[in-house]
């Protein structure tokens, strides 16, 4: 079976949807962060797919590497925030952290 661009985009879309689903439904902040990682990675797949099948070439791979670096930085900052949240509220359950509405 010939693997085409459509397959990559499909995988990427599934991965993105899973990521969004995780972000929306997970109650644990860590899980939400993992959902965000999934979203970022689905974007990476798209970049790579367009690099192979589209006209992006090497620029697509460069963008993917940037995204990975950003994701690493983002994870570091986000985990620090989660740690602080835990210190402050004694939980990482984002359902219970709704003081914004008050």
């Amino acid at each position, binding site marked *: 079976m010939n693997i085409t661009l459509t397959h990559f985009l499909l995988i990427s879309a599934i991965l993105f949807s899973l990521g*969004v689903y995780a*972000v*929306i*439904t997970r109650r644990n902040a860590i899980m*939400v962060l993992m959902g965000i990682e999934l979203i970022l990675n689905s974007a990476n797949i798209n970049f790579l797919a367009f690099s192979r099948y589209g006209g992006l070439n090497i620029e697509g791979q460069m963008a993917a590497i940037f995204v990975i670096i950003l994701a690493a930085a983002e994870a570091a900052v986000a985990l620090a925030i989660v740690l602080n949240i835990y210190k402050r509220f004694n939980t990482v359950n*984002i*359902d219970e*952290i*709704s*003081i*914004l*509405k*008050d």
Partner: protein
Amino acid sequence: MTPELTIALAILFIPLLSFVILIFFGKRFLNVSGHVGTTFLGIDLLLSLYILFAKLNDSIPAWDVTFTWIDFHTVVNNVPLRLDIGIMVDNLTAVMLVVVAAVSFLVHLFSLAYMKDDVRYSLYYANLGLFTFSMLGIVVTNNYLLMYVFWELVGLSSYLLIGHWYEKKSAADAAKKAFIVNRVGDLGFFIGIMIVWMQFSTLTFNGIFSAIGSGNIPFDSNNWLTAAGILIFCGAVGKSAQFPLHVWLPDAMEGPTPVSALIHAATMVAAGVYLVARTFPMLTADALLVIAYTGAVTAFISATIAIVQNDIKKILAYSTISQLGYMVMGLGVGAYTAGVMHLVTHAAFKAGLFLGSGSVIYAMHHALHHLNDHHTDAQDIRFMGGLKKKMPVTFWTMLIFTLAISGVPLTSGFLSKDEILAGTLAFSHFTGHSIIPIVGFLVAGLTAFYMFRMLILTFLGDHQNNHRYEHMHESPKVMIVPLMIFAALSFFAFFSFNPVSAGSGWFFEKVTPPTVVVPEGVASTDVKEFMEEVHHQHSTAMMISVGVSGLGILLAFVTYYWKKISADALGKALKPVHTFLYRKWYFDELYDATFVAATIGIARISAWFDAKIIDGIVNGAAYVTRIGSVVSGNFDSYVVDGIVNFTAYFAGFFGLLLRKVQTGRVQTYIIFALIGLMVLLVLHS
């Protein structure tokens, strides 16, 4: 400023200085405040004597100094409006200055003993000073404006002095009565002045008289001129206690007796006569007729009342009213000089009579005080009698005064009374009003009768209480000396060297009637013709007057000394008449029933009107306001607040709705964001 003017001003202001010093510092040197006042008045008297002699020797001319007080220029209607005030001294003024200063000085002297232990000794002397100042002011002023001012000032000082013992209700009431009754007359006086002002725009005597003389009459009507004269005379009716405003003078006897002598016998009550004399040139024949009749009625009514009174001061008060009526009548009939002369002679002997009665009352008080008797009236002549032996000087001086007032020859009263009576005869000759001389002679007889009744009951006969009699003494020297001076002044020699006719004396020579300025048709009899007729009638008048006086005196002796006629039996036989006279013709009752009751009635109606109508309007306005504010309050709290609250509620309601959206959960927001994104994508494609 001429030296004479300085002296005249000094005479006017020295008593005021006395008043100011005593009112502010009197309490500090209480014991000598009387001496201070007396000294000032002594100086005043000397100065006025100087002015009088200078005037009589014609060494100084009559002068009239005017200066402008307020100048309104031509503010209203292009008529120049200017208020001039000033002083004027002619022979009449000079005579009056001496009369006022002399009586005031002697009363000051007399009061040194009489008022010695009084609670308000220095205030008494201060008020005497104020009175003397105001009275001198009336005399020296040359215009109606200042005269009115001083007129009110004598009213005020009279009020203060009548009410000197204001702890006594009767004294306080008498003071009020005097003031209010005078106010009635003063209203007329004021309206008269206003009529004059309306027409002439000046109030100086000379200005007015020269304007009338040149044919300028108020509102071009002789009737208005008459009305102005009569209205100004109203002031005299009040001050000089003429009918129908005579009711205050007897009550004014509540004041200290020396005050009665000064104010209510010699000077203030004579101010009315002086006013008529000053106004004389502008009085029409009709006005003079009214004045003559007023005087005659007053003289008659009060003489009849005086017959039955028992209070020594009340008798003297009614005799004063009667004699004032005489003076007014004299001026009214045109006997100008005679009227003024009677004022002067009367001032001397009536002040003497009052001071004499003061001396008697003083002795009675001391005797009663000594015996601890607080019930007997010290002024009732029925409790006196036989005082001649105990108080010889008082008796002899009182006898001279009584002879003078009765019009017995060789006295001053005889001269002036005769001239008035001759004047009334001349008046009836020219105008046919024969009732006036008849009343004049009748009153002369009555006067002689009641004055001797008083004298006999007080000094002759027996004292009915030996105990009290023993305690009576002659008064101290300082009280007797003024009596002797007044007694000396009651002899003819001071006024005319001819004991039977005043016509040749200095008084008639110097105090001549002013030129009458009223228009021909309404003027009274020509002065020259009138004086000729007076000369003609003089001997007739003298004989009749001596006859009636003698008859009156004889009747008094028959009734009260020899007791040939029983006064009590006569009084019982004529009970209604006696009661009628004793109750003073029921004037007080009449006024109480009419004017006083009407005033109180009007006051009640006004009070009712005030309480019901005015208060009703006020309360109604308040009620309406309250209703209005309730309505507006409700509008505010329901409509305005409703809108505001509704807005808030509306915002709140939507806030409540929208608040559901703001869950605070990040994931919800992400869902919204996704939905939004999807909508955008759908819309875009």
